């Protein structure tokens, strides 16, 4: 799987080892029942993407059908279970874009394919601070809090037909989980309903719809160029660096 991590802006934040440290220690001391507690913790998504604003949405005059392929990866390796878990959310996001007349998992008449890959990545230095804060949360029986940042990239490839050139957009996003009783809201993050599941689903929707909207503004999206591009950038400025067009000749 070809994924590029260049769009990720390294940030010094808590990482996944914090979650593990907390879980492992708590589970060891208190038993496995405790392990469910962090899952009910508040869920946040990074503020870098957000939802596509109505005024920024690309509009396709004559939408055509598309075949959707989706794969979730973990550090570049296909993750079948997570793919299964999120496939319907990706399908919903693509349908909700209104850019296609039909979104199918099967081949479509024109041979158009939208390929979505979401990769769970580890930005450089993301692990550095994790062990300390995770251990602190675990050692204090989840009283001292930790914010656990989980990073994702997406790559959307679109081919309008069997012989059409591939166009690509990428984006980066993050999910934040709060662990522990005493905690502060993470900076640069937006709280979402539904805890961890809600955060994962929101991340999925936003990391698909933003680059998809940018993709639809590419002149190669439809050979007939029946897209009405907005004057506004496809993706919020704060996320521009994370959602960059990629020249990908076939």
């Amino acid at each position, binding site marked *: *799987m*070809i994924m590029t991590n260049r769009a990720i802006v390294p940030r010094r934040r808590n*990482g*996944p*080892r914090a*979650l*593990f440290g907390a*879980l*492992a220690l708590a589970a060891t001391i208190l038993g*496995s029942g405790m*392990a*469910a507690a962090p*899952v009910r913790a508040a869920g946040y998504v990074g503020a870098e993407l957000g939802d596509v604003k109505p005024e920024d949405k690309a509009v396709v005059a004559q939408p055509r059908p598309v*075949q959707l*392929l989706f*794969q979730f*990866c*973990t*550090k570049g*390796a*296909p*993750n*079948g*279970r*997570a*793919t*299964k*878990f999120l496939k319907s959310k990706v399908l919903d996001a693509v349908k909700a874009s209104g850019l296609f007349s039909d979104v199918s*998992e099967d*081949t479509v008449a024109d*041979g158009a*394919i939208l*390929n979505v890959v979401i990769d*769970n*990545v*580890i930005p450089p230095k*993301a692990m550095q601070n994790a062990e300390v804060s995770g251990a602190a949360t675990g050692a204090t029986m989840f009283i001292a809090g930790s914010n*656990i*940042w*989980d*990073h*994702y990239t997406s790559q959307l*490839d679109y*081919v309008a037909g*069997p012989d059409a050139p*591939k166009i690509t957009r990428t984006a980066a996003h993050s*999910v934040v*989980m709060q662990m522990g009783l005493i905690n502060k809201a993470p900076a640069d993050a937006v709280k979402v309903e539904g805890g*961890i*599941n809600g955060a*994962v689903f929101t991340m999925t929707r936003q990391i698909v719809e933003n680059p998809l909207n940018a993709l639809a503004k590419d002149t190669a999206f439809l050979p007939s160029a029946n897209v009405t591009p907005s004057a506004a950038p496809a993706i919020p400025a704060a996320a521009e660096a994370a959602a960059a067009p990629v020249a990908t000749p*076939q």
Partner: protein
Amino acid sequence: MRLGARLIFALAATGVSGCAMGPLPPAQATLEGIQSIRAAHVAPMRVGAFTPAPGEATQMDRSVSVRAGVQSAPGGSFAKYLGDLLEADLKNAGRFDPTSDLVVSGIVTHTHVDSGLPNGHAALGATFHVTRGGATVLDKALSTNATWDSDFVGAAAIPDAFNHYLGLFEQMVRDLAADPDFRAAAHQP
């Protein structure tokens, strides 16, 4: 995240379970695989039997183990999974014909996965047979492997190893589609 998403998905989607990993979804096409087959300009073909060779490949055909984790094969056979992946890509590339006399089949000859430290390893070997009108036009052995940073913690290392192992099956299909001998043997007349 070695653990973040893995734990998110493990806990939220499948719940905390024992050593057996949840079932995997059936084979699905990939854009890379479809484009590889489209670029190969092969004739429409059907997919014959994909089976494990005797020995290690047969022992690991129904499930594979890493440390205390066990992953069952999608559809009950990893060898069949390889064939299913190839069929999915052929179908999506418009190169699948269940009535064709051009047939590709395969035998998984080597399979391996571990989550050693500091690196995990996975390997897959297979021999592909292509027949046209009953006559063999290709017997080709291919192999692929992967190496990755393996975690000390099993909760991270085990699913990571399975993910990389399963990724080899997709890679194998792409390797076959890109293989010049396969392209020559299965070319569009």
